[in-house]
C-alpha cells in the first residue's frame, strides 16, 4: 500500500514523536514536580506557609497555562534558538513543550498531593518529622498512585502538543500528517499517522493506569 520510502518516513516520524514526548515529559517533571510541591507546602495551612511565594507562583502558572500552545511555540522561538541552536527539528520542539507542560504538571502534582489525608500528615508531625521528611516520606509516596495517573494524563497531553508543533517544522508524526494530509491532500498518509497517534496515546494511557494500580495499596 505504501512505498518503502513512505513507511521509513512514518517509522522515523513515530520515533521522533516518542522522543519529543518522553523527553519533554521527563524535563517538564523536573520543573513541574518541585513546583507542585512548593504550591502545596506554601499554602496558608501548608507545611511551610508562604502566602507571597504561593500567590506569585499561582499567577505565573496561570499566565503560562492561558497562552495557547501555538502562540507559545512561536513566542519562545528566540529562547529555543538560544538553548538548542536551531528552531526546527524535534529537539527544538522540546523547549516550548517543556515550558507549556511544566505549569500543567505543577497543577496535576498539586491536586495529587492535596489528596493525601491531612490526618496522616498530622500523624507524621506528631512523630517529630520535619517538613522535608514529610515531603519525601509521606506526601510523595502516599500520592504515588495519583501522581502516576497524572503522569499518564501529562504524557498524552504533551503528545498532542508535539503533533501541533508540526506546523512550525517540529517533525514527528504531526509534521507528516500536516505536510502530507493538509498540504498535499494525501489522505491515506494522514490517516495512518493519526491512527498511530491514537494507538500511542492508548498505549501510554494504559501503561499509566496499570502502573498506578500496581502501586496503589489502598484497596
Amino acid at each position, binding site marked *: 500500500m505504501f512505498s518503502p520510502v513512505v513507511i521509513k518516513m512514518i517509522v522515523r516520524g513515530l520515533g521522533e514523536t516518542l522522543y519529543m514526548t518522553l523527553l519533554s515529559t521527563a524535563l517538564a517533571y523536573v520543573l513541574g514536580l518541585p513546583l507542585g510541591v512548593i504550591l502545596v507546602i506554601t499554602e496558608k495551612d501548608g507545611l511551610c506557609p508562604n502566602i507571597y511565594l504561593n500567590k506569585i507562583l499561582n499567577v505565573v502558572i496561570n499566565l503560562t497555562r492561558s497562552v495557547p500552545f501555538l502562540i507559545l511555540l512561536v513566542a519562545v522561538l528566540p529562547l529555543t534558538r538560544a538553548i538548542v541552536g536551531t528552531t526546527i527539528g524535534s529537539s527544538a520542539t522540546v523547549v516550548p513543550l517543556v515550558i507549556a507542560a511544566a505549569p500543567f504538571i505543577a497543577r496535576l502534582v498539586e491536586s495529587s498531593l492535596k489528596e493525601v489525608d491531612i490526618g*496522616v500528615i498530622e*500523624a507524621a508531625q*506528631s*512523630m*517529630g518529622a520535619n517538613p522535608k521528611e514529610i515531603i519525601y*516520606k509521606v506526601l510523595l*509516596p502516599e500520592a504515588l498512585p495519583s501522581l502516576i495517573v497524572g503522569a499518564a494524563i501529562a504524557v498524552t497531553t504533551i503528545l498532542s502538543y508535539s503533533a501541533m508543533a508540526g506546523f512550525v517544522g517540529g517533525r514527528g508524526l504531526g509534521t507528516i500528517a500536516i505536510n502530507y494530509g493538509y498540504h498535499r491532500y494525501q489522505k491515506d498518509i494522514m490517516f495512518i499517522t493519526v491512527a498511530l497517534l491514537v494507538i500511542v496515546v492508548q498505549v501510554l494511557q494504559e501503561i499509566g493506569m496499570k502502573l498506578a494500580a500496581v502501586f496503589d495499596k489502598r484497596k
Partner: protein
Amino acid sequence: MKNKEPIIRLLNLSKTFRGADNEVKALEDITLDIYAGEIFGIIGMSGAGKSTLVRCINFLEKPTKGTVIFDGQDLSTLTRSELYKVRQSMGMIFQQFNLLMQRTALGNICFPLEIAGWKKTEAEARAKELLELVGMADKADAYPAQLSGGQQQRVAIARALATNPKVLLCDEATSALDPSTTRGVLTLLKDINKRLGITIVVITHEMSVIEEICQRVTIIDNGRIAETGNVEEIFTKPKSVAARRLVFPEDKKIEQLMGSRCCRIVFDGNSSFEPIIATMVLEFRHTVNILFADTKNIDGQAFGQIVIQLPEAKSVADRMIGYLRSKGLTVEEVDGYV
C-alpha cells in the same frame, strides 16, 4: 500513680482561633497536671475543645497564651528541631488511625524510627517486637487497607510506641470502633500502661472509656475545665453541670440494662398506698424503669396505674410479677409500652 511527679504541666493555657472577621476561643485558662505513669482522661462534648487541648500538649497547635511544660521543658522555648526531638518522646494515636496507606504494617512502625535515625535492620527488628506486643505479629506485611479498624488502631499504637515515648496521647482513639473492638483496644492500652509504665492521656466524649481505663479525669466544657478529679469521685459526686450531664446522659444507661418486657400494674383500691415499686426494687436488688405512672391516694387506698419496664433476666422479671400479684395488684404484661 507510680509517683507524684507531673510529666505534663499546662499553665493558664488559652487558644484562640482567628477567622477573617471572628475569633473563636477554643481553650480558656486551662491549668492541669498530668502525673507520670497515670492514665489521664480528658472528656467533653464534641466542640468542647479537647482535641485542641491534646494538640497543644505536643505543640501541633501553638497555644495563644500559657505554658506547656513537658518533662521539665517549656515547649515554647524550644527551637523547631528541638521540638521535633521532643515529639519523638510523645506518641499519638488518632480516631481515624492515620496510617500510611502505601506502607505495610511493619513499614508504618518503621516510620517514626526512620525519623529518629535508626538503622533499617534495627528498626525492622524493633517493629517486629512491637507488632508482637500489640498482638499483630502475623500481619507484618499487610497494608492498612487489608486490616480492620481495630487492627489498624493496634498498628497505630505500635507505631506510636516505637520510639519509647514517655507519653501516649490518644485522640478519640476508640470513637470509630465498635464496642467489642473498643474494649480490646482499651485493654491493650491498660496493659501497655502497666507493662511499660507509660503515661497515657485519653481524649474522649464517651464516659464509658474513662470509666474503663482512667484513674483521673478532667471535664472540659466550652473550652474551660469544669472539674478535675479521681474518676470514682466524679462518677459518684459530680459537682459541675457539665459533669452531671456526662455522668447521667438522659438515662441511656438504663435502657441498656432493661429488657423489653413491660407490665401494667393496676391499683383498683384493693391495696394500701405504700411505696410498692421502691420496696420491690429493694427486695430484688434489680432496678425497674417507670415508664408511666398515674396514681392517687384516696383514703389510704391506691387507685390508678403504673407501667414499668422489667429487668432483662427472665427469672427476675417473672418473680417480680409474682411478687406484685401477691400484694393484691392486678398485673398484666404489655408489649412495648408506647
